[in-house]
């Protein structure tokens, strides 16, 4: 009984902590993030036949992360610029640098977001934030949704960590 109550409370607590993710936004981001990633020079020049994207989530957002993964994989069932898109799920604590091209970061605590961004930037990993507001923690890109929807790039991070994107992407993007 006590166990049942514990799991109920845990589930309730988890559900209460879980963030709501908009399906439309997820669709857009699932479509655009791989394209933005492939337009970064290091990734584009990487001879690997894979574009490896890791979705970083916290436990309550597991379903959302899974959903995201499915959306990306369904959007890009084939190759994009000769690279096969591989999407993986991971929590920050278990992240390893090997075979990783880009991170898609879902909701975290601010200090966690800062650490994730710092770690990724130092390792020259392109980061995408689900929330445009997360760019202030140092993530590279997000999606701006206003009157129009367009890539949202963090100019300071790009400049500081020397990320090089295709000029056409830069032309159509918004910068924070």
């Amino acid at each position: 009984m006590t166990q049942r109550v514990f799991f109920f409370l845990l589930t309730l607590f988890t559900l209460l902590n879980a963030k709501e993710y908009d399906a439309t936004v997820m669709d857009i981001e699932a479509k655009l993030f791989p394209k933005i990633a492939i337009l970064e020079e290091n990734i584009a020049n990487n001879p690997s036949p894979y574009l490896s994207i890791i979705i970083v989530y916290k436990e309550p957002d597991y379903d959302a992360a899974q959903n995201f993964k499915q959306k990306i994989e369904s959007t890009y069932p084939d190759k994009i610029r000769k690279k096969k898109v591989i999407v993986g799920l991971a929590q920050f604590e278990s992240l390893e640098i090997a075979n990783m091209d880009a991170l898609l970061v879902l909701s975290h605590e601010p200090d966690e977001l800062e650490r994730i961004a710092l770690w990724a930037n130092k390792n020259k990993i392109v980061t995408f934030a689900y929330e445009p507001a997360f760019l202030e923690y140092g993530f590279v890109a997000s999606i701006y949704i206003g009157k129009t929807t367009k890539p949202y790039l963090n100019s300071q991070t790009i400049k500081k960590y020397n990320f090089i994107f295709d000029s056409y992407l830069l032309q159509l993007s918004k910068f924070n």
Partner: protein
Amino acid sequence: MIFRAFIDKFTFFFWLIFLVVNVPIYVFGSIYFQEILKKSEQEKITLMMTTLAPAIAFNISFDQENQLSEILNGILKYEDIQKIELDSLAHKKNLSKQTDPTLELFQYEHSIIDPFEKIEIAKITLYYSNTNLKNITQQIFITIFFIFIFALIVFAIIFYSIRTDLNALKTIANAMKEYSVTKKMQPILLECKSEEINTIANVTNQMIDSISHYLMQLKSFNNELQEQIEDEILKQQQQERLMIHQSRQAAMGEMLESIAHQWRQPLNIIGLATANIETEYKLGVLNEKKFDEKMEIVSLNLQHMSNTIDDFRNFLNPERKLERFHPYKSIGEILNILDAQFSNSNIRFKLIEESNVTFYGVENELKQVMFILLSNAKDAIMLQIQKQKISQGLITITIKEQSAEGIIEVCDNGGGVEESIVNTIFDPYVTTKSNANGTGIGLYIAKNIIESRMKGSLRVQNTQEGSCFIIRISLENLDKKENEVL
């Protein structure tokens, strides 16, 4: 006046050059220039689309509707592009300007390639006109036209400024064109300030004055010369008349001698006949028959003497009747006159008629010529007989026809003409006769009559025994000559 400068004939050539230059430029421009510009325009649009296609592709790929519209509107701002059609799965756009519907539009299609998948994701079609090209071409022609108009104005101003000088030159040219030595000409008066042109006009006036002056002098000289010639001709005619008179006088002297010779024999016969009549009458043997025989002899000889007188009278008849005559008959009459003298001088003559020739002219004049030639021949032969170089004289007169000419040759055996005077024998006062018989004008008169009155020629050539005088008279147009008044 300035307007006239635009329509003057000098300006006409300018317009002609304008058309000759501008029309080929226009035609060339219409055919080739526009084609080149059109090609250039196509290249420009191709370049533009090649440049913008990746941006369009990115915007399509990233669903950037607004930016895509901005780019397409930017393209549409280009003057010649009238309409844009974009056809993709996610975007269908149709942008156009409000343009003249009659405007000819050209189509240009460009594929939009996805930057990620490298496949065609859209097709953009541009419709463009050549308005810009037409404007450029028009501007070029307008520029050329205005350049020519400017040049024309400059030309007209220059022409206007030098028109006075040109008119002055034209006046001088016209005056010189109309100038004639036979026409009196007014001096050239100019209202021109150009020193050089005034100098030309002044020199021209002076030249015309000089020519007029020299012309008057020439006329005066001509008149004087004419008078001198007329005087000389008059003198010459007087001289000739005098010479002819002298010649006739000489001829008459010789005639008297001939008459004396001619009459001597018949007078002797008549004398003998009358003496016989008288003797026989005294002897009483004169009967009627004998009387009639003697009277017949007297009558015949008187008739012969009368004929002789008639011959002389005919020869000396001053009448100058133009007629056709046979030279054979005329020469025969002259030989009749000279017959007695020739016999007395032991001279034989032959008159040979190889052709029956007819001359037209004054018969007596030919007789006079023949008389002179035969008398000269007789004198020459007598001189040779006296010198005992020959014992008997022979004169051969031949009448013949050769190359439409009647020819009379008078050849003798009188020793010929000395070579020293053979070229001057026909000059007046040239004679070979040492005694006072020769006047030296006989042959001159003879040549004069043959050449100037009978339109023939008389020349001499020496033979082995003597000389031959040859008369040649043309027999052509004898009828025409008959109508001429000598």
